[in-house]
């Protein structure tokens, strides 16, 4: 039986971690994810979990300690945001190359500089090529559910990759919303026990981890990572199927909202999808065929599936909550554009960089995007595919 509660996104993530009861958590505080290790150390202090909590002196050490713990044969988890993830960056790559299914709760925040503590996705985008599975969450419920599914995906023998569950800083992490929680015992049953094949603490079979890996082997090892990332897609769907059978909540690679018959589609991630749904509902009332594709699985990127889902729309707007500063459009836009091109389907596309540094994105902003799209549908051309949404243009 699900339990109805009211929790913030951070509480939801911490609650999932408590129910998963990992062997080791190593974390360092950073706004807006600080509450996760705070809540978690309270669970530890009160004996609610069996976890060894390592209060490290930096995020670099947090990920290093997670790597040491996971390689030793444990389930290791951590949480961070923004500059914390930047400081981990070196170890993020090492965690995935060592094929350690560490699970990280990433509460998205703008990476400095200048310093800003509010939400955008520049932290996540900085590690998009690091070999981690990346799940995005629209709200507290999805942050909770994605975390409950994380280990089943990451630890699958065809995958063995680390995984991060993203949610929007403050917007989700600090907003209290209704949530359905699952029973501790049911979570335990669903997540299962972790029995790694090879681990440092097995005195009967000592292993060596993290070699100097030169020209003769590194290429093959990287290709194995790439294969694992491809294999993750099916595993994510299988786990989602089991999750739905248990909780009744459905998850796919992405969510299609009023997409089937729509003329104009917005593609976005995390909490903005909620705002967009509200706008789609209003437009639909007026008979305007607006739709939404909300990315849940950003890595591996479900390229073919997204191209198929968008195949019949007349114009696409991708909302990027991080600017790649490359003069040509941001990361999600490029991923979607590549997917469409490779599928052989030209549909006019436009990129909107929005919400940088926690800039509010309102229903009016989203409605203006659909207005722009209707113009694009009419003309069939895109004048400027790399745009801003919500920027005070007079100041640049």
């Amino acid at each position, binding site marked *: 039986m699900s339990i109805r509660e009211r929790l913030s996104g951070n509480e939801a993530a911490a609650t999932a971690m408590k129910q998963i009861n990992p*062997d080791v958590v190593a974390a360092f505080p950073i706004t807006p994810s600080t509450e996760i290790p705070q809540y978690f150390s309270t669970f530890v202090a009160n004996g609610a979990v069996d976890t060894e909590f390592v209060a490290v002196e930096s995020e*670099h*050490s947090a990920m290093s*300690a997670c*790597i*040491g*713990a996971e390689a030793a044969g*444990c389930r290791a988890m951590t949480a961070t945001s923004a500059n914390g993830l930047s400081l981990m960056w070196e170890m993020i790559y090492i965690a995935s190359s060592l094929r350690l299914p560490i699970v990280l709760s990433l509460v998205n925040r703008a990476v400095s500089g200048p310093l800003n503590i509010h939400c955008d996705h520049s932290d996540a985008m900085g590690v998009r090529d690091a070999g981690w599975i990346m799940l995005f969450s629209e709200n507290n419920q999805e942050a909770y559910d994605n975390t409950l599914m994380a280990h089943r995906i990451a630890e699958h023998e065809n995958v063995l990759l680390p995984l991060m569950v993203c949610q929007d800083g403050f917007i989700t992490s600090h907003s209290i919303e209704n949530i359905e929680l699952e029973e501790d015992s049911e979570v335990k049953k669903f997540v299962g026990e972790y029995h790694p094949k090879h681990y440092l*603490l097995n*005195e009967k079979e000592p292993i060596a981890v993290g070699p100097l890996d030169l020209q003769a082997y590194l290429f093959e090892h990287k290709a194995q990572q790439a294969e694992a990332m491809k294999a993750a897609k099916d595993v994510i769907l299988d786990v989602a199927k089991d999750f739905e059978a248990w909780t009744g909540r459905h998850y796919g690679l992405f969510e299609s909202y009023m997409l089937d018959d729509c003329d104009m589609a917005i593609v976005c991630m995390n909490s903005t999808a909620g705002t967009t749904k509200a706008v789609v509902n209003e437009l639909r009332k007026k008979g305007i065929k607006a739709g939404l594709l909300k990315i849940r699985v950003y890595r591996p990127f479900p390229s073919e599936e997204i191209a198929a889902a968008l195949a019949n729309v007349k114009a696409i707007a991708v909302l990027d909550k991080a600017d790649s500063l490359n003069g040509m459009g941001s990361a999600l836009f490029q991923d979607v554009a590549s997917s469409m091109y490779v599928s052989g389907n030209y549909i006019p596309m436009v990129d909107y960089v929005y919400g940088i540094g926690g800039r509010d994105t309102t229903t009016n902003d989203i409605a203006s995007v659909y207005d722009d799209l209707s113009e694009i549908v009419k003309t069939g051309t895109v004048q400027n595919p790399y745009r801003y949404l919500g920027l005070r243009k007079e100041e640049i």
Partner: protein
Amino acid sequence: MAYNVKEVVAHKPSRFTEGHRMCAGCGAPPVARHVMRALKEEDHAVVANATGCMEVSTFIYPYSAWTDSFIHTAFECAGATLSGAEAAYVSLKRQGKLPEENHTKFIAFGGDGGTYDIGLQSLSGAMERGHDMTYVCYDNGAYMNTGIQRSSATPKFADTTTSPAGKVIPGKMQSRKDLAKIMVGHHLPYVAQTAAFMNFKDLYEKAEKAIYTEGPTFLNVLSPCPRGWGYATEDLMLINKLAVDTCYWPLYEVVDGVYHITYKPAKKLPIEEFLRPQKRFKHMFKPGNEWMIEDFQKEVDTRWQELLDLEEMTNKAN
């Protein structure tokens, strides 16, 4: 039982095997081999290694020179990586997920680059958190793996590739950091400075104490580098001896804050004896540079006296 090098070598199999690719005359392999020999045969170890000469020469895929479990992640985080592995052990033991008979010890190796410099924060954090582990710094006094660049462990005036002895600046102009004392400042139960000296007794006994003292412990081990220091490979043990006999590298241990100098040379040799066989100090012997040797001697004397004073003071207090 009293230490006997023959007994140890004959009866305890090496856990750091032949076939590694470290240079002839390098001080680090005997250090690693002897530290690992200090483990009880029945105990398992997880070794963490910072990136550096030792790592890139002992674990080149798919070969490992380590018979125990081994992990390398990056340059600056051997302390943090090993603290994660140790936390895993504590957690799994507490939960009954590891067999009773599993006794695992945790040993990190890092060069002076990975320990004094880029890895100091990670080391300090691991020590402060009290993980039951031993961190061994093999101090060769420069970043040797990348080609002999100065570190904060490089002695004053040494000629390195980033502190070259030039026409205007005669080598490194700063004194070396005293890492063992920084570790003492963490109030660890056991800190020692040692070297592969004489028949390895000092190194072996300190390694054994460090590994089997509960809590975080630290060993700073002199580890000469023939390429960086410029000595003949066969002179490794001589260089170690001169470092100790000149009091450039005093052998001591600090047990719960109390200093014990474990070797006091009957005749303290002048520092030239240590400096002369090494090419990195060659410019100090040019006419007109006598002041450099005097300056070096003064620093050695000051630090040695400071150590004698600390020994007297901490023993009196106890």
